[in-house]
C-alpha cells in the first residue's frame, strides 16, 4: 500500500486510542476524588503528568483545578493531546485515506468527531464530563468493532491495529507509572495498609478490574502491576499490546516470526523477548519508574523505526526533485 496511506492509518488509530485513554484517565480521577472533600484537589495535577503535557498546561492555566484540568485534557484545542484535538486529527487522517477505510468506519469516526465537537461547544461541558468520557470510550470501541468486522484483515488493517496497540501500550505504561507513584509514594510504603478503593480505581481506569479478579483474586500492588504490565491475555496490558503489535508487523512484512530484515522488526522482537522472560519481581527490583521509563524509550525507538521503514522512504524523492530543478 501507499506509504502515505499507511502513515495516515497508523496515526489515525493512534489518535483515536489516545483520545480513549485520556477519557479513561479523567474518568478514573473523577471516581477517585468524588466524596474526598478538598483534600484531594491536588489529585488533578498528576493527571496532566500522565499525558506528558504538564508544561503546556502550566503555561495555559497555571494552578491545577478539577475544572481546568478537565477542560485542558478534554476540550482544549490548544492542547494537541486533548480528546478534541486527537479526534479531530484522527478524522483528518481518515479523510486523507477515506478510500482505504470502509464507509462504515468513516461514518463512525465522523459521528465520533461530531459528538466530541458538539460536547466541546456545550456550556455544560464540565458538568457533563463524566458522561462525555463514557461516550468517548463507547465511540472508540464502536470504531474498533466496526473496523474489525467491516475491513479486510490485510495490510491496512494491520497498520491500524499496530498503531492502536503501540499507543495503548504507551498509555497503560504511563498510567501505571503515575498511579503507582501516587499510591506508593516511597519504597517504604510497599506493603503498607492498602487502599483497595484506589487500586481498584486504577484497574477500572483500564477496564481491568473484573479480568484481574478472575486471574489474581485479591488486590495487591504487585499483582496489579503484574497484571497491567505482564499479562499475556488482557487486551490493555503492555505485554499483550507488544505481542499483538509485533504480530501485525510480521503480517505486514511477511517475515517469519523470529527473523527480521528491517530495524523495526528487530526492535520489536527484542522488546517482546524481554517481556516474555520478565517477572514482576524483576520489575520491582529494577524500580517501577525506571522500568517504565525504559519501556517508553524502547517503544519510541520502535515508533521511529516504523516511521523510517515504511512511511518516509518516499521523502527522498522530493529532495532529488528539487536538486534536479536547481
Amino acid at each position, binding site marked *: *500500500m*501507499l*506509504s*502515505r*496511506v*499507511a502513515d495516515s492509518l497508523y496515526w489515525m488509530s493512534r489518535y483515536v486510542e489516545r483520545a480513549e485513554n485520556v477519557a479513561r484517565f479523567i474518568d478514573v480521577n473523577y471516581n477517585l476524588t468524588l466524596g474526598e472533600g478538598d483534600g484531594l484537589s491536588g489529585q488533578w495535577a498528576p493527571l496532566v503528568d500522565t499525558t506528558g503535557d504538564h508544561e503546556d498546561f502550566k503555561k495555559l492555566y497555571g494552578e491545577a483545578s478539577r475544572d481546568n484540568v478537565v477542560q485542558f485534557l478534554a476540550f482544549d484545542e490548544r492542547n494537541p493531546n486533548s480528546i478534541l484535538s486527537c479526534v479531530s486529527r484522527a478524522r*483528518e487522517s481518515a*479523510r*486523507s*485515506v*477515506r*478510500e*482505504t477505510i470502509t*464507509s462504515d468506519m*468513516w*461514518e463512525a469516526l*465522523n*459521528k465520533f468527531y*461530531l459528538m466530541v465537537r458538539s460536547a466541546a461547544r456545550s456550556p455544560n461541558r464540565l458538568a457533563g464530563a463524566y458522561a462525555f468520557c463514557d461516550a468517548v470510550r463507547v465511540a472508540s470501541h464502536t470504531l474498533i468493532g466496526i473496523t474489525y468486522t467491516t475491513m479486510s484483515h490485510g*495490510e491496512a488493517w494491520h*497498520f491500524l491495529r499496530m498503531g492502536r496497540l503501540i499507543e495503548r501500550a504507551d498509555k497503560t505504561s504511563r498510567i501505571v507509572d503515575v498511579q503507582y507513584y501516587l499510591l506508593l509514594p516511597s519504597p517504604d510504603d510497599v506493603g503498607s495498609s492498602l487502599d483497595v478503593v484506589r487500586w481498584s480505581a486504577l484497574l477500572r481506569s483500564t477496564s481491568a478490574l473484573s479480568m484481574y479478579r478472575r486471574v489474581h483474586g485479591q488486590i495487591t500492588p504487585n499483582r496489579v502491576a503484574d497484571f497491567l504490565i505482564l499479562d499475556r491475555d488482557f487486551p490493555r496490558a503492555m505485554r499483550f499490546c507488544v505481542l499483538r503489535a509485533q504480530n501485525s508487523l510480521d503480517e*505486514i512484512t511477511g517475515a517469519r516470526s523470529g527473523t527480521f530484515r528491517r530495524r523495526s522488526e528487530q526492535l520489536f522482537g527484542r522488546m517482546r523477548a524481554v517481556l516474555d522472560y520478565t517477572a514482576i519481581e524483576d520489575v520491582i527490583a529494577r524500580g517501577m519508574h525506571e522500568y517504565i521509563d525504559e519501556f517508553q524509550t524502547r517503544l519510541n525507538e520502535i515508533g521511529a523505526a516504523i516511521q523510517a521503514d*515504511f512511511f518516509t*522512504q*518516499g521523502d527522498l*524523492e*522530493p529532495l532529488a*526533485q528539487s536538486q*534536479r*530543478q536547481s
Partner: protein
Amino acid sequence: MTTYNSPSYDETFVAADEPRPACRSFVDRLQAIPRDELRARQHAAEVSLRNLGITFNVYGHEDGTEKVWPFDLVPRILEQSEWTRVEAGLRQRIQALNLFVDDVYNERRILADGTLPEEMILGAPTYRKQMEGFRPARSVWCHISGVDLIRHADGTIYVLEDNLRCPSGVSYVLENREVMKRTFPQVFDGTSVAPVEEYPERLLETLLDCAPPYATHPTAVVMTPGIYNSAYFEHTFLAQQMGVELVQGSDLFVDNGFVYMHTTHGPERVDVIYRRIDDDFLDPESFREDSALGVAGLIDAYRRGNVTLANAPGTGIADDKAIYSYVPQIIRYYLKEDPILENVPTFICADDKQREHVIANVQDLVVKPTNESGGYGILIGPHATQEEREACVARIRENPRNYIAQPMLNLSTVPTLAGDQLAPRHVDLRPFVLCGKEIYVMPGGLTRVALKEGSMIVNSSQGGGSKDTWVLRTSNGRASSDNHAAH
C-alpha cells in the same frame, strides 16, 4: 398544497395540480405523505449526509471549509423516451468532440479547410502545445465528461456547456440515490428507476480499457490535489468505489520513463492515472514550474506511451466556451450528422460584429468568461447593476477572446421542499459520459437546484443544492399510467 405555479417550464407539473403523465403516480404517492412527515424525512436525509461526511469545500472560507451539500428530497423525474433522445445526443456530442481534439493536436484537418478559425484554437489559453503530434491509447482524449443541460421555458433542452477536463459531481449522484433509498423508501414503490450504481464499475472499465497496450494487468489510480480541494470527497469516493489507490503527487515518481508509487513494499508501477488535477499542475517540468502538486517527468512518461492520463491533457480546448458555439459544426464535420441536442445561441466577443451586439445589449444577456467554471466571473445582465455592466463591458473590450454572451434562459423548475410547502425551484442537469472502448451514459445525472426563490444559480459554491434524478423506465410508455390505475 397551496397553489403551485412555476414561473417557467415545470418538470413535474403541466399546471397546478396537474402532474405530467410520467410523474402522476409519483405525485400521488408524494401527496399521500403528510407534510410534517416529509419535513422529518428531509431532516433525516440531512443528518444522514452529515454523518456520512458528504461534503464539499468552499474556497475563501478559512473557518469551516467543509460544507454539507444541501440535498432536496423531491426527485427530478425524466421520462424514458425523452432521456433516450438526450442520451443519443450526448453520445454524438462526446464522439465528435473526441475526434475534434484528436484532429486539433494532429492532422488539423478542421483548421486546414477553414471550418474553424485557426487563431480561435491555437490562441486559446486551453490549447496545450505539449500535446502536438501525440495520440493517446485508443485515441481517447475525453474519458470522463460532464455535459451541462438546461431546459428553457419553451420546453427545449439545451446544452449549456461541456466539461471535458475534470468534471465533478458524479459522487453526489450516487450518494443522493443512496440517501434517498435510506430515508424515503416508499416513494420508490412500484416505480422502475434506471439504476446509477454501476457507474464506478464502468469508470474502472473505461480506465483499464485505455491502459498502455504493454500493461497486461494494468494498475489504475485516482490522483487528487489533496484534502483541501473542493471535490476531495469525490476523489476519495471514486477511488474507494473502484478499489484503487488515491494518490497525491508526492506519492508518485518517474523513473526511466515509467511512473511508480511509493508503497510500504517499495515502488509499484502505475499504468493509468485518473487525475483530478488541472493540466497546469501535472508536471513542473512541462507545465507550471512552481507546481508542488505534480510529478516531475510525468508528461515525458505520458508522451512515451508508458502511462495513460484520464482525461488527456489538452482536452480543455474542446470545452472552451468560445469553441462551444462551434460544436454543431464540429458534429456535422466529423460525423456527417445533424446535432441531436440544441446549443444555446452564443455570441463570441472575439468577433467584432458579435462583440458590438453584446456590448449594446449587455442588459439582456448573460456574459461568461470562456475559461472559468463554478459560476465564477459570470455577469447576469438583467440582474446586474449599471456599474457591474460597465465593468463587464470594459473587461470585454480589454480581452474579447475571454468572453462569450448568451441570451438569458429561464431554467425549468422542480417542486422543492421550502419550509412546509413544495415550491418551484430552478434546476439544471449534468449527465456523465464515459468513453473507453465504448461510450456509456449514466442514466440521469446530477440535478442541481437553486434553493433560493427565483434564483437561477445552481452552483454548490453559491447556494445551490442537489436532487436525486430519476429516469423512469416505462414499458411501451404504459407503466406509469398502469401504476396510477392501481392506486
